[in-house]
């Protein structure tokens, strides 16, 4: 097993690898190793867009070796929230890092001019990217594919103009259809003059016991394809949840003014599957193929001339650019996703920023002068397309504020009570109840995937749960996901990787761990992350919950502020915080 860290210093135009056996032994890999590296590398209180702020990419011991362990993790100081930045992407990066022999990559400094990093096994080069600065993320991929080696076994991650222009929620596009979407990794790339990173390799991941390896592999593969633990991702995909959450009254609509959308059927996963889906793709090493690609065919003249755009879709973008903006057509949703793909914006933050702006415009908090005449109205897709382009270009103070996120924009223009962010991060598509709110608020990266509060609420809808039980569930997920994200597994496959299967698969690659070891590791990783968060100014006791959460009926009825307060008190107590 390779146990080293690759350092790339863009300021010094230099790179080197260091053996870090102890680091990997103690912190496993993925997010565990990354948070330690972040604490080592990132000076306290530094501007997230300064050269001193590092970017860390990492995989774990199972990536490229076992099925459905298909993610990689990026860790940085978030330009959006000013504290922990952590984002996960599928695609092929985990595989390329594994076979290039780099389990963790630390990127330091700032290149003198636009550059990209090219890694082929041990050969690391920092190359000129001036001629592709300003080029959209999709075309950047097309250009680099021609210039670089490793067809079929490489990964190309890149930013679009949003990252270059430091939009605080710009993402990094990974192999076209996957993303390090959240918390502004794209802006961190842009601040370093870093347009892209291309990586491929030809190494072998050596396995100590081949027989054991095949046996565990077959077991995990069978669970993934023969049981129903991953079925929903296989068929309709995550967007199956549009109808489900709509029925439950948990689908945020018109900036969370409603929790069900009367026209949800028109943007449902079933509708997309029937009318737009033309292809499904997999991340390397996953037999499920949950990446759903729509063909958006539109006429550009009256003479049967068409353009076809291939757009990947999922539940979250349909929520953020669909129901939450009142957009009621598949074409409208796909057009908006496509703009985000090309410019390199995080779809979730972008949608929530627009939904706040629409409501603020409706309430005359912002004027047509400020929007430069762009009508920000529910379901006005043309207006939203222009607004997204303006967010990337930031032609005036208003769009420049939108580019800094909803927390910043609402502090400047008002409408705090309906600025839908938790911990400074624009919220995900669930108004399911108190566990979703508390989960995102306390979560290490303020994501629904930190502890799946939305899922706890849905369990509570079937069988009532008291506040303490909900908090216990949140803590359990907080900790166990720290372990899973150190491996770095796909969360859709968490049903495959039971504690026992994690222990067996680690054992097959020569890493002996017990249940207790893993639980202790999960707790330790969580604490390290909070160490960084608190150091950078996050304070749970003053964290803001937008009033809108308490006004709109959720899947569990109206959420009382007292319930959230009570859960936070219990949470702090159980975490041992005063």
């Amino acid at each position: 097993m390779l146990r080293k860290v690759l350092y790339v210093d863009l300021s010094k135009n230099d790179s080197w690898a260091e053996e870090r056996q102890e680091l990997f032994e103690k912190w496993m890999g993925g997010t565990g190793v990354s948070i330690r590296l972040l604490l080592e590398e990132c000076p306290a209180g530094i501007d997230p867009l300064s050269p001193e702020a590092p970017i860390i990419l990492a995989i774990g011991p199972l990536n490229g070796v076992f099925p459905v362990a298909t993610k990689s993790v990026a860790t940085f100081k978030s330009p959006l929230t000013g504290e922990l930045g952590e984002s996960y992407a599928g695609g092929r990066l985990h595989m390329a890092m594994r076979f290039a022999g780099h389990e963790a990559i630390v990127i330091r400094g700032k290149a003198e001019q636009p550059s990209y990093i090219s890694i082929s096994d041990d050969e690391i080069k920092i190359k000129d990217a001036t001629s592709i600065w300003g080029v959209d993320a999709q075309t950047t991929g097309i250009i680099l594919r021609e210039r670089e080696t490793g067809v079929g076994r490489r990964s190309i991650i890149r930013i679009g103009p949003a990252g270059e222009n430091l939009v605080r929620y710009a993402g990094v596009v990974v192999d076209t259809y996957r993303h390090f979407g959240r918390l502004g990794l794209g802006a961190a790339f842009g601040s370093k003059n870093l347009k892209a990173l291309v990586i491929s390799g030809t190494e072998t991941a050596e396995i100590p016991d081949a027989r054991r390896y095949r046996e565990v592999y077959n077991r995990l593969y069978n669970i993934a394809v023969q049981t129903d633990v991953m079925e929903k991702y296989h068929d309709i995909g995550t967007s199956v949840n549009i109808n489900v959450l709509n029925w439950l009254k948990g689908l945020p609509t018109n900036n969370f003014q409603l929790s069900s959308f009367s026209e949800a059927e028109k943007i449902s996963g079933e509708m997309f599957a029937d009318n737009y889906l033309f292809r499904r793709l997999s991340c390397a090493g996953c037999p499920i193929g949950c990446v759903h690609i729509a063909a958006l065919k539109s006429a550009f003249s009256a003479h049967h001339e068409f353009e076809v755009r291939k757009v990947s879709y999922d539940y979250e973008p349909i929520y953020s650019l669909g129901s939450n903006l009142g957009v009621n057509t598949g074409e409208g949703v796909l057009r908006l996703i496509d703009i985000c793909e090309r410019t390199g914006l995080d779809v979730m933050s972008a949608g929530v920023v627009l939904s706040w702006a629409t409501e603020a415009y409706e309430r005359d908090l912002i004027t047509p002068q400020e929007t430069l005449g762009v009508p920000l109205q529910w379901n006005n897709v043309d207006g939203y397309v222009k607004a997204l382009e303006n967010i990337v270009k930031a032609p005036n103070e208003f769009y420049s504020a939108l580019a800094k996120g909803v927390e910043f924009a609402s502090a400047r223009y008002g409408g705090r009570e309906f600025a839908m962010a938790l911990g400074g991060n624009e919220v995900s598509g669930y108004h399911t109840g108190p566990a979703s709110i508390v989960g995102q608020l306390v979560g290490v990266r303020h994501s629904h995937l930190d502890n799946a509060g939305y899922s706890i609420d849905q369990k509570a809808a079937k069988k009532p749960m008291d506040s303490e039980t909900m908090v216990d569930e949140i803590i359990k997920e907080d900790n166990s996901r720290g372990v899973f994200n150190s491996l770095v597994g796909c969360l859709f496959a968490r049903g495959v990787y039971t504690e026992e299967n994690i222990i067996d698969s680690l054992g097959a690659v020569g890493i002996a761990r017990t249940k207790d070891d893993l639980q202790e590791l999960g707790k330790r990783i969580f604490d390290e992350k909070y160490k960084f968060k608190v150091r950078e100014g996050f304070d749970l006791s003053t964290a803001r919950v937008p009033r809108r959460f308490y006004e709109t009926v959720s899947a569990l009825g109206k959420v009382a502020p007292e319930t959230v307060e009570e859960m936070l008190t219990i949470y702090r107590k159980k975490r041992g915080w005063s």
Partner: protein
Amino acid sequence: MGKSKEARNTDITASSEIKAADEKDAAQRPRKRRRLKVAHPERCIGCLGCMFACSRIHTGQASLQDSAIKVQTQGGIEGDFRIVVCRGCENPPCVRACPAGALERKPDGGVVFHRDLCTACGKCEEACLIGAISLGKEGKPIKCMHCGACVAFCPHGVLTLEEVPA
């Protein structure tokens, strides 16, 4: 289990060792040579399960390089996948090109690789027009044995094992 699930090839219980054993039997029974066929390349989702299966089952390691089957991209994952693997030619150019007799055509049409005879000259790689032979770390060919290990790990039935009449 849904309809789509039934259509997927999930028969991995009969995989690896058993299939390899079948392959040996097949070699002894000339009339039943089996050959890997890329039946439905357009159904490929790019999971690379076949490549991982090939190296895992034949070398016991996780590797893309050591796989005899390659899933190539054409214009990244936005484009169509191209599956490159030995098609079991009736008159194999790789055998004709080998100066050392390391690649031998059996009466049933199957090609056997004698590793000990191979001089790592690379002529077989050059001779294969479809690019189905790649050279491993020692410069010796990584050649498909038509064992079917990859077939069992293709979730979409892209690959099949067909019987070739002698």
